[in-house]
Every structure is written in C-alpha cells, then in structure tokens.
C-alpha cells in the first residue's frame, strides 16, 4: 500500500478573468504544492483529447513576455463562509449577552463558532459555540489556558431551529445559557417538527463562574466561525464586496459552522430571559423602547438589504454604531428563517420570513492567492482558446503539469471572422470541481464503470475540492448553489478524462470542435457565455453563424434573451450539443466571476432545493429548469433534453425529412441508408452522453424537420426525471434505452425569420466524431454542409 498523493498534481492556478481581448491584461495565480519552481508558457489550445484513437493533443506555443521560470509558492485556501464585523470599541464588553436563532445542520461535527469575538491563538475574547459534544457552549477567554466554558449538557439536533442565548455578568460571574428548540409546522424544512421529549435537546443552565471580564482583543466579531489567526495577510475589497471604502483585513478562520443564523445579537450586559425575548422579537431594534435598546451593541438584520435580490454581501446592523459586516465566501442569503411559514416561496413576497443566512464550511468565493504574473495580451493575438501551461521544473507529466485556460476574443474594434464559437463558460463553472469520483456513492450507477482518478483529481480531493461546484452537496446535505471562477477549476482542463464521460466532457470535449474548425480552415472568433451575458445581441449580431459548444446547459436570462433575439433577426446557429439552455443560472450583480444555480425540485438534478429555497439570491427570480419558467429549450433549439447515459454511445439513422428539398443540401455526400456516426472519441459513437428529442408539445417550432434520429442506446440511458410523473417499469415512463423510444437523439433543422436557421444534433457526443478517419466521415461532412450552407448569403434552400 502506498499513498496515492505521490501521484498527485503539484501545481495549479486560476486567472482573474476567463475572457479577455487583445491589448487587455490577465493575471494568473499559481499554487505550487511543494514550493517547487515552475516554467510558464502561454499556449493556444487546439485539441485536448489525448486518446490514441484520435488526432492527439495539439497546442501552439505563443511567445509572450511572461513565458519564463518562476519560483513556486504554496498558497492556502481558506474555505468556509462566515460574516466578519471589524473590531470596534463598543464590542469590548465586560458583561454581555449573545443570542440568536440557530439552525445547525451538522451539530455533531465538532466545535463550531456561532457568535464569536474570540482569538483561538491567544485565548482572548468570548463567544457562543457548539462544542465537541454538539452542545451549546459559552466560552470566556482570559488568556491561554485560562478559559471559562459553560456547556448546555444537551445535544443540539440537526435541522431544527433553536433560540439560543448566553448572558454573562462579569461582576458576579453569573451565567445563564439557554438552548430552546423552536419548531413550527414548516420552519424546519425537511427536519422534524415534533421534538419529544423536549428535555432530550432543551436546556437552561444557570451557574456561576469566576467573575471578571473576558480578556480584550482587537479581533473582528465573526458569525459562523472563530479566529485562528487575526492576520491572514488577505483582504476583501471590490467585486462582490462593492461599497467598501477600503480593503478589510480578514483573519484565518476556524471552527466553521454549518447551518443557519437568524437575528444574531450582542448586548453589553447580562439580559434577563424576558429582555432576550424582546430583543429577538423583531428583525432589528425598531420594535424596542429606547431605553431597552441602550445596552444593545449589535443587532444584525439579515432581511434589511433584501429587495429584488438577496445578493449583497453587506450585513446590516441596526444599532447606533452601525456595526455592519460582510459575508465572506458567499454565505447563502434569501433562505427561510426561523419564522418561515411557507406562506411565501420567495423573499420578494415575504422578506420578513427570509431572514436567515446559511453557512457552509467548504464554500469559496475567491482563493485570494498572491498573483504570479500578469500577461498583457499582444494586440495582434488571434482569437482562440488559450492557456498558461505550467510545468514544475519544465517537466511534462500529469503530476507536474497544469493548464490554466482562458479565452481570447477578437479585438474591441470588431469581429475577425463571420463565425463565432461561444464557449460554455457558465457551464464550466456549474460543473466545477465536483469531486464526485471520491464522494458520490451513486455516480457509478450513472456512469456504469468504476471511478477513475487522475493526478488532478487527487489534488482536488486533498484541497476538499477548492469550494466544489453545483454537482456536489455540502457536508450537511445542501446543494452547492454558488460557483466561482476565482479558484482553480481542475476539471476545466485539456488532457482531462471526466467522471461523467468514458473520455472527455465540457471544456476538453469542446476542444474537439475547436480542432475541427481549425482543421477545416474556418476563421472563427471565440467568445464566452459571460461575454454574451454582458453584450447580448450586440455580440451575436456581428456574426453570420454562431456555434455553441457541446453542452451549454447553464445560461442566464440575458444569454437566453440574446439567442432568442439572434434567432428572430436572421441568425444562423449550430447547436452541436445536447441538454443546452436547461438550468436557470445567474451572475452575481457585482462580480461576473460568480454564478448561482438553484436546482429547485424539478429537473434531472444533482440535488433538490430545500423547501422555500427555489429563488435565486442573485436576481430574486425562480431558479431551476428553464422549462418551468415557460422557456423550454425546444423554443430555441427545436429539441428538448430527453435522456442521459454517461457511458458508451450509439449512432444515427436518417429520417424522411432529410430528403425534403429544404433539407437535402445538409446530406450532400451522405447516402440515404448510411449509418451516421458509428464511430468517435466519446463512447465510440456520435449519439451519446446526453440526448435531446424534438417535441411539439414542448415548443419545437411547427415547421421543424426531423433529419435523423439515434437508436440502440443501452440500459444505462434513462429518461429525464422532469417527464416522469409516476415511476413505472416499462416503455414510456421509467423505461431505459432498450425499451423506451423517447431515449434517442433527434437531429432537427428549422428556418427562422430573415433567412435564419437552426441546426441541432441533440447529442453531446457529436463533436467527438468529427475527427474520425482524418476528418473524412459523415459527421464531419454533415457539419461542414451546414456550416457552408449557413455561411452562404441569401435565403436557405
């Protein structure tokens, strides 16, 4: 037996942006696991699939000033969301009350900070915690080894709201610690509402400890963590921390809480239980008489700045000192609070019931690494998919080499081609760092093979997935709804075999198309979906033909609207993909590197949204599948997601519409009975992974043509769950590939106004077949026919 870490990747990194124009700058952040030096080179990526059955890896070295050797450095990742309130003299309390509603989701997972102004390093300060026995615990620090602790004696239960408080009188040493379950018919979500016998978890402790104040410190006040070291060397500023007038230093935090807080409070004397009830009776302090407010140091109202969205990281404090805080690592806002009744399913309608914030100990908004180098792009750099190639000591091996991809757009002066390929940057973020090869007990049912880990996966696992992505769940069972580009995304890489595919998936699979376009001699401009989000139809309108990559599953409303407009204005569009335009996804209003997905309760999904959590924090609109917002993908694409099987692929057969006058040009050089795509680098066929079908009941345009369909999918191919009302053995409900005729890919073509047109293949494996037989095959031929036909001016046949 040996430690697989010997085979772990030892270098990685990320950029400050994914998409950049010639003349602009892009900064790279690099981590070297063993502080080894590395060689960096900028390369243009052409083909990333290393399969010996294909054309092999292709890259072009680009001479730039940043190419060179660098000293490597280990860079820490401080995961886990929390709220920071900078130190302020009113927080130097002697006696105090700490209280809040809390909803612990992993109370038995070790010590967790709730409301703390405690420096673990020097033992100063005070705080309310969950202790190692899952009990509420008050800690009063008087220096290292001189700490007073009082615990509740009863365990906190998982997924149950509690009112908790600790009141301490420094003169007498009296402590009252209260842990009181607060279950209503709906507020527990999927947690229990009957707590019987109550004594199993309820506790009220009154005791006396040695009197005296906690030792004063200058630590920030944290919610959902405590301070391991006040000086992390890192700050928060700009982007999603918009509004800060200067950078805020943040600590290295520890004792990270999993769960929710609502109405956290700090007062500077020991309150009676009645006073605590009054203090917690409103979202802020407006409901309190003036004299009762005087001892209140901090009363944070998590509903205060929720309006059309709940995206702000600013945490509003209602008292005279305005001790506002910031949420670090994107704690989840806009979630049901202790008083949630289920009368409202959105904070837009019932803001007062959405006063909770959910914290997870694994979330990451930004790695905050020190920059390694900044590249100013040459003004004449060709649009394309690029990467910084990093090699420890210049060595090419899976353990010593990483690529940090980025997209180079055409110059701001205008397009350099008539064709645009839009890289699925939003989906790359959504799929980021799933780590499911290590953690998912069921992934192997979907993939029909044992998980394969590569050196990248081993690093990702060691780093606890650098904050995960929307295919994972946090330790407490909640789905990961936020993903950031400001950290290494180790499954967005060339040369990478993806868990969800027998070979490649997403970014690396999209390079199949990049390679084919290059090999066939098409001039193409590269953009990312983020660019379409920001520039809309203005971007797409510059091109005669637009191609999506092989799996544009996650799109924002603005991206959706841009394509819809493109279609209405005569755009011609190749959707060489499946399961595109499926999930509602939104960018953070102040930071385009961060996206949100709420998977709701309908759709083929990695997790189910919890009760009342269906609306995005980032825009306040209903999250989940676009079809439940009345925008099924077939409206745009002519096809709708119908099945997936993350295993071997199949092929297509032509359908009668392919012989029609309007369609025959697409099949020039392809025989009527010719089998299409019974070859390829993704599962050995052009029809595979995920499949779409045409459906007139789901918005397929009424004059769409069925050109071809696939057949022969195995029993690993299952129907999409959104179309299963009742599970049933057999053909049409839960039937798998060998019984259910809805399990197929439909190749569809339709015309749109002003000589526009859409060509959809309904399969994620299509592009993997393009290079077969030195690019001379019927998948390549059909694709070329469509490209050339779409590029020709004048009406379509």
């Amino acid at each position, binding site marked *: 037996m040996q430690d697989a870490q010997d085979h772990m990747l030892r270098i990685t990194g990320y950029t400050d942006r994914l998409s950049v124009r010639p003349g602009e700058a892009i900064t790279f952040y690099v981590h070297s696991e063993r502080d080894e030096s590395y060689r960096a080179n900028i390369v243009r990526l052409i083909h990333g699939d290393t399969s010996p059955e294909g054309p092999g890896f292709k890259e072009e070295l680009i001479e730039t000033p940043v190419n060179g050797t660098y000293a490597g450095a280990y860079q820490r990742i401080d995961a886990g969301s929390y709220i920071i309130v900078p130190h302020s003299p009113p927080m130097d309390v002697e006696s105090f009350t700490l209280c809040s509603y809390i909803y612990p989701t992993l109370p038995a997972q070790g010590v967790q900070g709730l409301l703390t102004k405690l420096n673990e390093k020097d033992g100063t300060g005070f705080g309310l915690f969950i202790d190692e026995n899952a009990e509420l615990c008050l800690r009063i620090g008087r220096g290292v080894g001189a700490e007073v602790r009082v615990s509740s004696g009863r365990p906190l239960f998982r997924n149950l709201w509690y009112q908790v408080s600790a009141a301490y009188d420094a003169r007498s040493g009296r402590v009252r610690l209260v842990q009181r379950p607060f279950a209503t018919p709906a507020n527990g979500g999927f947690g229990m509402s009957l707590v019987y016998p109550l004594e199993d978890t309820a506790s009220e402790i009154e005791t006396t400890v040695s009197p005296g104040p906690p030792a004063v410190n200058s630590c920030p006040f944290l919610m959902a963590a405590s301070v391991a070291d006040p000086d992390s060397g890192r700050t928060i500023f700009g982007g999603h921390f918009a509004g800060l007038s200067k950078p805020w230093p943040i600590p290295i935090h520890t004792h990270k809480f999993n769960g929710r807080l609502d109405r956290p409070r700090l007062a500077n004397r020991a309150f009676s239980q009645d006073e605590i009830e009054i203090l917690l009776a409103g979202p802020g302090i407006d409901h309190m008489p003036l004299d009762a407010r005087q001892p209140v140091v901090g009363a944070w109202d998590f509903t205060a700045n929720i309006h059309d969205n709940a995206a702000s990281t600013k945490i509003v404090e209602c008292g005279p000192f305005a001790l506002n805080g910031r949420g670090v690592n994107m704690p989840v806002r806009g979630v049901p609070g202790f008083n949630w009744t289920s009368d409202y399913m959105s904070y837009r309608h019932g803001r007062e019931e959405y006063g909770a914030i959910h914290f997870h100990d694994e979330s990451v908004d930004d790695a905050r690494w020190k920059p390694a180098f900044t590249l100013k792009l040459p003004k004449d750099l060709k649009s394309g998919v690029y990467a910084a190639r990093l090699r420890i000591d210049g060595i090419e091996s899976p353990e010593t080499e990483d690529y940090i991809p980025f997209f180079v757009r055409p110059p701001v002066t205008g397009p350099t081609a008539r064709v645009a390929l839009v890289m699925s940057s939003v989906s790359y973020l959504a799929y980021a760092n799933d780590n499911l*090869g*290590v953690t998912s007990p069921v992934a192997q049912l979907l993939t029909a093979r044992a*998980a394969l880990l*590569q050196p990248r996966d081993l690093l990702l696992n060691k780093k606890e997935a650098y904050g995960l992505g929307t295919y994972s769940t946090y330790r407490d069972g909640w789905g990961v709804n936020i993903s950031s580009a400001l950290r290494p995304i180790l499954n967005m890489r060339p040369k990478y075999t993806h868990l969800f595919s027998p070979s490649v998936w997403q970014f690396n699979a999209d390079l199949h198309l990049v390679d084919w376009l290059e090999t066939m001699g098409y001039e193409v401009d590269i953009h990312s979906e983020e660019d379409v989000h920001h520039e809309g139809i203005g971007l797409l309108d510059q091109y005669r033909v637009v191609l999506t990559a092989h799996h544009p599953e996650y799109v924002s409303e603005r991206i959706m609207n841009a394509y819809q407009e493109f279609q209405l204005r005569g755009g011609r569009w190749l959707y060489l993909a499946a399961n595109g335009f499926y999930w509602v996804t939104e960018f953070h209003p102040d930071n385009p590197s961060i996206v949100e997905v709420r998977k709701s309760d309908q759709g083929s999904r990695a997790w189910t949204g919890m009760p009342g959590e269906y609306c995005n924090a980032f825009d306040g609109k209903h999250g989940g599948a676009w079809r439940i917002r009345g925008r099924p993908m077939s409206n745009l694409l002519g096809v709708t997601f119908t099945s997936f099987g993350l295993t071997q692929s199949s092929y297509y057969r032509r359908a009668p519409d392919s012989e029609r006058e309007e369609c025959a040009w697409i099949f020039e050089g392809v025989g009527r009975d010719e089998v299409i795509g019974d070859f390829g680098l993704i599962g050995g066929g052009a029809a595979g992974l995920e499949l779409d079908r045409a459906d007139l009941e789901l918005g397929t345009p009424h004059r769409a043509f069925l050109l071809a369909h696939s057949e022969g999918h195995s029993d690993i191919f299952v129907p999409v769950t959104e179309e299963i009302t009742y599970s049933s053995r057999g053909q049409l409900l839960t039937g798998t590939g060998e019984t259910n005729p809805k399990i197929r890919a439909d190749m569809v073509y339709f015309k749109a106004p002003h000589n526009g047109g859409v060509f959809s293949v309904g399969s994620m494996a299509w592009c993997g077949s393009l290079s077969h037989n030195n690019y001379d095959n019927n998948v390549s031929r059909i694709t070329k026919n469509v490209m050339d036909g779409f590029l020709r001016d004048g009406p379509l046949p």
Partner: protein
Amino acid sequence: MVQEADAHGIPITALKQDYAFKAVDDYNFRMYILPHLVNPESRSQIIAEHRANPLYAPTRPGKPAPIYSRVLVRLIDKLRVVPTAGKHIIVETQPSSEYSIALLPPARGETVVLTEETYPTRGEADHAIFLKRLSNLLAEYGIET
C-alpha cells in the same frame, strides 16, 4: 437485546441505524442474486460475462446494445453503490497505460490509498474491482472465493 444509547443517554434505535433498509437489501440479495453466486458454475458465467464487457461497448448498427444479463445487472448495481469508505476505484498512474487499484477515504480531503495492483487497461482494472467487491460481498455471507 442490547439497549444502546449515546453519550447523552438518547437511545440509538434500529431506526437510526437504517435497519429496515439493510434488512430489505439483504432479503433482495438472498432471493434474487445469491442463488446465482452460490452455484460455482453460474458464478463463473457471471464473472466471465463481466470480464468480456467490463465497460459496456458502443452499439453497432443492426445489433442490440451490449447490455448485461438480468442477474449481472442486479449484482453490479449493488456492487457499484457499496459505501464510499474503503471503496475500490482506479487511479491512472501512467497516462493511458497504467491503471492502479486504490481505496477511497471516508470523506473528501482524506487520503486515497493506492495498492500495488496495476493493469494496462481501464477495462481490466474495472474487472479486477468487480471481483474484489464481489469477494467482499460474498465474504459477508460466509462464502470464500
């Protein structure tokens, strides 16, 4: 019967230990899968069926999709969802040429343990894992392989 309780004196009930799931899973295995494995001849057939097609294969025109027999489907679907801690998986230790058998940790962040057992193809490594999981499962029922 042992009256188990946690450190706070709260009973650790059969319900908390997912007793019913395990009991039904056991029933299903004994009724529908185990008889095929007890018989050495049919067990060999099942193993041979997996060895011949460990990763499935692309469908070819005019042929049915290469799928497993009903009993192998039931068996392998059970083997694929064995608990994560200690679960066998593959680490690609040489690109496209060396696939090592490894064991998963109980939680992310913890160490993946590599064995010295390697195979030249992913399919062979997958079959080796099939045999290990099968062997572990049969050992639970007192059957040595």
